[in-house]
């Protein structure tokens, strides 16, 4: 074996110097804990997603939709994000179906929210709609981590009880990788998660307060800022909402049991509900349906087989020649003017479900 010459790598004192650098790198961040101790945080409760985060302050479960659903007793329920919101005109669908429609939509929502809405609002209200439609794009349905980042969690809070063990265990199957574990270990050792929850808002508030010292005016300013950057003010940019399906997400066999799809199908079946998953067509390209990789096409075939074998329905808009490019606004969103037309096409295509 090749013998190392002493001149090629540092040793002795030199190695001690590098060791000192690494030791300081790892010990200085304990200062975060000290800083945290000075900060009087708002009361924190254990999270319903311990696989993802530590204790934090959260918004309470909102039971209003449960009461509203029970009072409304809808014939059909629509769950989804802006893909459904920019496509379905509930009033028109109500006219066509002759039954009340309950849209449970939230822009920026993902499968965790859809699952909780189905379980904690629709099923909990004990209504028996003839069908529950869940809108999604490409591989979103089997990616439990889609829109589950910190900035989306407040939305999930409204639909989550104090414990969501099944959701948590599904998430745990996706967060058991070494990166999540390492990040989680560092966060808990140094108290970084807790620090992040108050330091960053404190920093942005400090900047705002320096410019606008009055508390009331500052609050009004922040609210105006949020309005200034709301969806209405965003440019109709093709890339705005196009989130291309990553090839590695298009592996149905790998992700289905690490997703909420089996739970949705199981819970719906137990409650006697028919679930219809609606895959929206992404933005057409040059007058043709959008490109789909071979992996994605295989994924959709597997998805359909799985859903149908578990008593659900999959409706795929992709390739529907009636859904032309001129109906689209930005990215995969439809234009407001196309909502009524889409709703009518949707009703036509799924007529058997509306009989």
């Amino acid at each position: 074996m090749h013998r190392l010459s002493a001149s090629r790598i540092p040793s002795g004192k030199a190695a001690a110097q590098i060791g000192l650098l690494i030791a300081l790198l790892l010990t200085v961040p304990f200062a975060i804990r000290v800083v945290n101790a000075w900060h009087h945080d708002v009361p924190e409760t254990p999270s319903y997603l311990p696989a993802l985060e530590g204790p934090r302050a959260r918004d309470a479960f909102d039971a209003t939709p449960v009461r509203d659903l029970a009072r409304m007793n809808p014939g059909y329920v629509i769950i989804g994000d802006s893909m459904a919101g920019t496509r379905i005109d509930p009033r028109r669908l109500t006219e066509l179906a002759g039954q009340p429609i309950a849209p449970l939509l939230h822009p920026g929502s993902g499968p965790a929210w859809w699952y909780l809405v189905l379980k904690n609002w629709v099923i909990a209200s004990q209504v028996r709609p003839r069908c529950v439609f869940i809108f999604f794009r490409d591989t979103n349905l089997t990616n439990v981590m889609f829109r589950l980042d910190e900035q989306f969690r407040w939305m999930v809070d409204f639909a989550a009880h104090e414990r969501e063990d099944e959701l948590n265990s599904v998430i745990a199957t996706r967060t058991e990788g070494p990166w999540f574990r390492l990040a989680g270990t560092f966060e808990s050792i140094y108290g970084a998660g807790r620090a992040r929850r108050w330091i960053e808002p404190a920093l942005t508030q400090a900047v705002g307060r320096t410019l606008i010292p009055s508390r009331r005016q500052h609050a009004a300013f922040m609210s105006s800022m949020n309005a200034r950057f709301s969806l209405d003010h965003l440019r109709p940019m093709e890339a705005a909402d196009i989130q291309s399906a990553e090839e590695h997400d298009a592996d149905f066999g790998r992700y289905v049991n690490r997703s909420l799809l089996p739970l949705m199908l199981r819970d719906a079946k137990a409650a006697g509900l028919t679930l219809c998953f609606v895959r929206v067509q992404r933005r057409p390209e040059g007058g043709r349906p959008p490109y789909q990789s071979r992996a994605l096409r295989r994924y959709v075939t597997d998805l359909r087989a799985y859903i149908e074998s578990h008593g659900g329905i999959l409706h795929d808009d992709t390739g529907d020649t009636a859904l032309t490019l001129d109906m689209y606004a930005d990215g995969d969103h439809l234009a407001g003017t196309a909502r009524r037309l889409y709703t009518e096409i949707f009703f036509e295509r799924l007529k058997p479900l509306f009989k």
Partner: protein
Amino acid sequence: MIFHSLDFIIFFILVASAYWSLPRRGQNVLLFGASYFFYGYVHPWFLILIATSTAIDYCAARGMEAWPDRKKGFLWLSIVSNFGMLGFFKYFNFFVENVEHLLGGAPHPALRILLPVGISFYTFQAMSYTIDVYRGELRARRSLLDVAVFISFFPHLVAGPIQRASFLLPQVEEERRLTVEKARSGFLLICWGFFKKLVIADNVGVIANKVFALQDPSFPILWAGVFAFAMQIYADFSAYTDIARGTSRWLGFELTENFAHPYLARSPSDFWRRWNISLSTWFRDYVYLPLGGSRAGHAAWARNILLTFVLSGLWHGASWNYVLWGTYHGLLLVLTRARGMLSPARPAASRALPAFAVPVLTILQIAGMFVLTLIGWLLFRETELSAIGRDLRLSPFAATALDRQAGLYLFALALVYSMPLWIHSLWAEFVGPDTEGARSWPQLALQGIACGLAFAAILVFRSRTSLDFIYFQF
């Protein structure tokens, strides 16, 4: 594989650990294998391209030495094959779209051509080898392994800095050493690089992305966004360079500097001596000087400068805004020189300034150049030409009070996040050069504390939106 991933950290620790237990040739075999694994980690077919480029350039260089009378032909083989690959993968759709637009035909669905990451960097690096051999400045290498390591060396493969064969190849061929100085300074560069990427670039990038997504930005909001983007692109690109240089040092290599505090430049030419230095010097040596440089009179010089900068803009991407950005910077250089020619007495006038006026003049020059740079970044970031026209027509007087407040708020936020970058630049420029050397234990402890604080900041402030390195797309 990206630097800010656990995959890379594990990969690098394994490679570096095995590396120092091998003799030089074994190290090169390991580097070759590791670099190809790194590059083909997500898309293995990328390896076909880099291997093809390497094989052609190796053979072309050997051919030039074996048949000197045909060396021009071998040079063309290298240039055509490298530019052919680059042109197909990077510019094919752009070309087709523009031809269709000119002919007024119905748009055809574009071919789905995935741009292989790093192709613009390694093709340029490979061509520097064959061009230097053609010019007789470098001898063709016999070892295909050494040439392959030179072209694919993983720390800088994806986003530079582009290395010259005359600088990097000898290091590939020589015995490497890991000195404590290299290990320590490499460690600092890696820490500083991660801090710049995860704390500065990703956070100010969120501000820039929000502003550039607005349909109707007002003057203050737009320029706050441009400022945020200026900070983002510098922090992001220089972070990649620092991590590349730091990891290279741990493997016993030295890569050239790519940035020298560009936002403290005093003139356009000064800016290009500080920004993306490896690319600017590549274009200087392989495009601008062969075109004639400044030897053939003012008009020819202006043409050469403009052509070089248009090509440099186009190198960044297949889009007209990059061409516009390159043209803009070329024009700035031409106009600066024209102004210098029109007022040749300026140096004497400068000498006559009172002492207190010199720093004021310096500050004004830096501020003026920074504003010009921001205009350039607007052209660079805004991909829609119609939006560029609209942005440049915005009036500061038409903004509402809320827009002024919002612009100031976003600017202040971007400034707060980028403050470490400014402090570092100002310190290095006006107090002393980068103090990479640390001879005493207290100095070392201070550097360790700085690394620890950087790590703490990464833990607390890392953006929720992790963005790719910007220059990956080029």
